[in-house]
């Protein structure tokens, strides 16, 4: 009896081996992203659609919230066990690319294996490290001011025009405060660097330059201006006190949602969250101009990328999947621009008419920005950028809490920032 069983067992194994050898080569792809239930459900659905179309491909998904994603990815990188396709962020892509963990996708784009016909370079260059593409933009973002039009109306002031200046901004904020008592948020509390960068870029300088060993600017004028403008508003009571503003909050707890501030500085993909939190109509505006502005400070930032890892055993299949994700209309009707405004024109056109009113506002804002209010993105953040940005935020807090003068603060930041980046000199 036992022998019969054994023979049977061997036969079954042998048979299954031959069968699988005859069929198209089975491929398993691991795809990782950070997300939320909405994104996870939509992405999962698209992956199932893809697997139905390509029966030889099995896709294993690895998803977490933002918390934990980078720890896990770094750990997997250390063990040489990265997934085939990973969602990447602008803040991390350089480091991953420079350590040779990501595949250069330039040939795939040139050969149209990833078809990006008609996509403006403005949308793509964020994924470039040293003139090679390491990430494909999954959605476009631009920095914006989200504000409450009802408050402006109540105060009897006109909504901001695309050409407004920081002087206009201060006057408007003061007027709103006088008429309605509604205050103004400090200049971007979560990422103060982005707003300052917007001002700095108008002078033609980048925050981080092509030289990774130092900051992209050495003139403290704009930085002092950035601090002093806030301090002026703080002194006159217009600005929300740092004690309240710098408490890390969710959109729901933010002064904007509570009606204590008439605006919030956000990336365009966060508008949906802030509108939902405030639960009333919102409007979008460009950041103001500084005096003698040389170029628009706003730029298109990829909200996130898909990258293929160099350790992947199935690079061609990974590229095919990304192409599908970018171009398939049906797939994008499921995804519904949840990762930001799609960069492929035909996809964008279809979605423009499908999305809800708030997303439509974002679509319109992005296309408005595209019409002459945008300049090319700066070189990607160098290694050590995270530490520099933390120092920037810290010093910004010190200024607003009143423990340091704007002049000293500007000097302190230039010193600290350059010191951190100087470490890149002896790194190979």
């Amino acid at each position: 009896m036992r022998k019969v069983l054994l023979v049977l067992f061997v036969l079954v194994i042998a048979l299954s081996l031959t069968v699988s050898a005859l069929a198209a080569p089975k491929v398993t792809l691991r795809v990782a992203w950070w997300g939320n239930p909405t994104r996870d459900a939509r992405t999962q659905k698209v992956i199932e659609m893809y697997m139905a179309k390509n029966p030889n491909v099995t896709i294993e998904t690895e998803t977490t919230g933002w918390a934990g994603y980078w720890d896990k990815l770094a750990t997997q990188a250390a063990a040489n066990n990265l997934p085939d396709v990973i969602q990447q962020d602008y803040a991390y892509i350089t480091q991953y690319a420079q350590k040779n963990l990501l595949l250069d996708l330039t040939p795939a784009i040139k050969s149209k294996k990833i078809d990006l016909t008609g996509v403006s370079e403005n949308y793509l260059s964020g994924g470039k490290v040293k003139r090679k593409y390491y990430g494909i933009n999954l959605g476009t973002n631009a920095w914006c001011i989200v504000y409450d039009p009802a408050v402006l109306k109540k105060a009897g002031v006109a909504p901001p025009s695309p050409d407004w200046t920081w002087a206009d901004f201060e006057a408007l904020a003061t007027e709103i405060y006088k008429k309605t008592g509604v205050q103004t948020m400090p200049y971007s509390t979560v990422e103060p660097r982005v707003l300052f960068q917007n001002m700095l870029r108008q002078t033609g300088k980048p925050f981080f330059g092509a030289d990774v060993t130092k900051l992209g600017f050495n003139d403290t004028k704009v930085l002092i201006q950035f601090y002093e403008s806030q301090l002026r508003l703080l002194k006159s009571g217009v600005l929300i006190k740092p004690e309240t503003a710098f408490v890390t909050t969710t959109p729901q707890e933010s002064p904007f949602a509570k009606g204590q501030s008439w605006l919030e500085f956000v990336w365009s993909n966060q508008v949906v969250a802030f509108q939902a939190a405030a639960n009333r109509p919102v409007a979008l505006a460009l950041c103001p101009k500084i005096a003698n502005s040389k170029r628009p400070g706003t730029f298109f930032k990829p909200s996130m990328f898909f990258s293929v890892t160099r350790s992947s055993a199935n690079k061609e299949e990974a590229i095919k999947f990304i192409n599908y994700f970018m171009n398939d209309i049906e797939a994008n009707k499921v995804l519904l621009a949840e990762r930001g405004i799609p960069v492929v024109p035909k996809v964008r056109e279809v979605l423009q008419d499908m999305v809800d009113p708030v997303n439509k506002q974002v679509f319109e804002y992005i296309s408005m920005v595209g019409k002459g209010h945008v300049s090319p993105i700066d070189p990607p953040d160098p290694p050590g950028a995270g530490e520099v940005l933390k120092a920037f935020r810290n010093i910004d807090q010190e200024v607003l809490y009143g423990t340091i003068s704007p002049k000293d603060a500007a000097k302190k930041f230039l010193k600290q920032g350059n010191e951190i980046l100087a470490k890149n000199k002896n790194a190979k």
Partner: protein
Amino acid sequence: MRRTQRWLNLGIYHVFIILFGVLMVYPVLWMVFSSFKENTEIFGTASLIPRHFKLDAYVRGWQGVGGVPFGFFFRNSFYYVILATIGTVFSSAVVAYGFARIKFFAKNFWFVCMLLTMMLPYQVVMIPQFILFFKLGWVNSFLPLIVPMFCGQPFFVFLMIQFIRGLPVELDESAKIDGCGRFRIFSKIIFPLISPAIITTTIFQFYWRWDDFLGPLLYLNKPRLYTVSLALRMFADPATATDWGGMFAMGTLSLVPIFIIFISFQRYLVEGISTTGLKG
């Protein structure tokens, strides 16, 4: 007179404890009640009680993540947590007895090793440990999470050592005279006598494993293997609108097993087993 005094004292005791208890438990109640609110109401009002009790958030949350319903996560969590807790309780007790009662070569060395592993932040051993388990081919299974639990957990070993050392040594000696070996002394005398520590260990370890996030995050890649605590973290992406209702609903559900474990075990801390007769 004395009677009224006693009643008064008792009254003050209960009033005081209940008042303070409300303070203690308020945030928990807030979360539980929020799970029955609509998303816009959660942050909108200061009121604890929802305007309308809604179960929508539970329905939404139960759909789970990445196409895997929350039921899977509960099953996974139970599997992992129960095995890990059993492993911890027995292995820690055995190791603790060794440290507390037996004199052997290099004992202090091993004890110091144990203390040191508690002081080292996990983040710095996380990567080499991952590489180790990866090389063993254990990634994407519960092995890296469960097997180490059968090797004695330092915190609980130390806890049980303290309890064993609180027991009179005459117990061991009289058992020895009766012809008991070390293993019998441990299983028949010591293990039952440190039951308060055993119960505490069970409650703690059940809760800690249930709440563990980093371990499952690293070792379980497929959504089908996710545990409850890992799935809960997926509700929040800083850039997008969070489904607070769904998160609180599943958060509330995830408290239920810990709550039940606590209620059913804590009463043994004062009732049931008694050590009173010991020194008699």
